[in-house]
C-alpha cells in the first residue's frame, strides 16, 4: 500500500452541475493501469469523499468507476439548487478543489 495525492494520478479533476439539483465530480486518471488499481482498491469511495466535503453518505447519488474513460464519477445532492439564495457557484464548476487535495491509498 502506498499513499498518493489525487493530483499526482489524475489528468482531470472537475466539478459541474448535473441539472440544478445535483453536482457531479469527475476524476480522469492519467493511465489505465493506475485507474484499474484505484478501482480494484475502491480507493475513491463514499467514505473518503464524504469526509472531505463534510456531507452524509446519503447525499451521494452515484459513485461510478467508468472504464471507457478511466474515470471515477461522483454525483451528489447540491446543497442548494443552482442560483438559490446563498449561491456561491451557479455552474458548480469550482467545487472540485477539496478533491485535488484528497490522498488515496492502494
Amino acid at each position, binding site marked *: 500500500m502506498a499513499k498518493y495525492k489525487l493530483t499526482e494520478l489524475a489528468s*482531470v479533476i472537475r466539478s*459541474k*452541475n*448535473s*441539472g*440544478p*439539483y*445535483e453536482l*457531479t465530480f*469527475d476524476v*480522469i486518471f492519467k493511465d489505465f493501469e493506475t485507474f484499474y488499481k484505484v478501482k480494484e482498491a475502491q480507493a475513491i469511495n463514499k467514505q473518503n469523499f464524504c469526509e*472531505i*466535503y*463534510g*456531507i452524509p453518505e446519503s447525499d451521494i*447519488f*452515484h459513485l*461510478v468507476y*467508468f472504464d*471507457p*474513460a*478511466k*474515470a471515477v*464519477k461522483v*454525483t451528489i*445532492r*447540491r*446543497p*442548494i*439548487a*443552482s*442560483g*438559490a*439564495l*446563498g*449561491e*456561491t*457557484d*451557479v*455552474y458548480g464548476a*469550482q*467545487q472540485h*478543489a*477539496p478533491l485535488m*487535495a484528497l490522498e488515496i491509498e492502494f
Partner: protein
Amino acid sequence: MKEIRVLSPTAILGYGFPEESFIEGMRRKPHVIAVDAGSTDPGPYYLGAGYSFTDRNAVKRDLAIMIPAALEAGIPVMIGTAGGSGARPHVEETVDIIKEIASEQSLHFKLVILQSEFEKEFVKEKIRKGDIMPLGPVDELKESDVDESIHIVAQMGEEPFIKALESGANVILAGRSYDPCEFSALAIQQGFDKALAIHMGKILECAAITALPGSGSDCMLGTLREDSFVVEPLNPIRKCTALSVAAHSLYEKSNPYILPGPGGALDLHETKFNQLSDTQVEVSGTKFIPTEEYFVKLEGVRRVGYRTMSPAATHDPIMISQIDTIIEKVRERVIDNFRNSGMKDFYLDFKIYGKKGVMNMFPKTADSTSDELLIIIEAVAPTQEQANTICGFARSTMLHYGYEGRISTAGNLAFPFSPSDCKMGAVYEFNVYHLMRIEDTCEPFPMSFIEF
C-alpha cells in the same frame, strides 16, 4: 439512405464557429444542420426574466450563416431550446432574429415553430391526475408552486421535430428540447437505430467540446450508419480520440452508464469507442431502454424578490481577524434599524472571498485565509427599492463600524466602484423540476409555421 451526416456548428447557438470549419462541414454534404441553443447551467434567472444568456447579435451571426447555407444545400436547420430557456418569450426573440435574416438576405423558406411552455391550468390538471412526480431531490409539486412559477417549460423529445420535418419545414425552431433531439430526429425518422442516433446527438450537442483541444465554438460532424456512428472535428487543429469521446459521456451527467431522456434511457454498458483514424472515433453498442410510459422533464422558476449588491474589500489585518464578528454586528444593526419600518422580510448575505467564498456551499470543508478580503454585500427584498435600502445601509454601517481594536478610523472598506451599489433586478429560483407523464408525445408541443 445508407448514412446520415449531421453538422453541429457550435455548442450553443451564439457561441460562434470559424467559417472555415463550417465550410468544411458543408463540403461533407450533411443531411441536416442542428444546434442546441440553451442550457439551465446559467441558473434560474433567464427562464424567469424571459431572455437569453446568449447575445442577440451573436445568435444572429450564427443563424445568418447557417440558414442560407442549409437552404442552398436543400437540407433542414433544426434549433433546440430557443433563446436559452425555451419559454414563449425566448422562442419569440429567436423568431424575430430569423425574420430579420430572411428579410435582409431575401430568403424564402418555411419556418416551423414548436412551443414548449405549458399553461398553468394544464400543469395543475396533471398534478390532480397524479401525472407529475419529483425528479431527484425535490418535493412533490403543489398547485401553489405552479401558481408562483413565471414560466414552466417541458423538454420535448424527437417526436415533435419529426412531425415538423414531415410538414415540410426548412427551419425548425423549438422551445425547450432534450438536447440530443434536434440531432437525432431526422435519423430516427429515416429508420436508423434510435440508441445510436440519440447517443450521437448527445455528443454533437456540445460540438467540439468533445474534441482535443476542446472548444465550445467550433464545428463537429457526426455520421450515423447501421451499427455505429463516427464523430470528427472539422477544424484541422483538433482531433477526437477514443478517450476524449468516452470522457464526454461523463460531462454534466449523473451517471455515465445510464442517460435518461424522454421515453427512455441510453445504456452505455456495452458501448465501444474505437479510434478509426487520427481524428475520427467510431462508437457502437449503445442500447436504448424505453420506459413503459412516456415522461418529459419540467422546469420552472419563481421570483423571490429583487437584489442589490455592493462589492467592497479590506486589507486591514485587524479587521480581517474579526470579520465574522463584524458581519454579525452589522447584520444586527440593519435588522434593528428597520425593525419598525415595515422592512423585516429581506435576505442579507455577506460573501467573503479570501475566506472560503467559493467553497461556502460546503460549510464543513477546510477554512481558507488571505491578507485581502473581497466582501460582497447582498440584499434581496420584495422590491428593488427595499433591496437598495438594506444593501446601502449594510454598506454604510460596515464602512464605519467601530470594531474592537480598530486603529484605522477613516473607513473600513475599499470600494472599487462609484456608485458602490449595483441594482441587479429580479431574482428567481427553480421551483419546478419534475417529470410529467404524457400520452401523446407531440400534442403538448403546439406547432405553427411562418412562410418567408
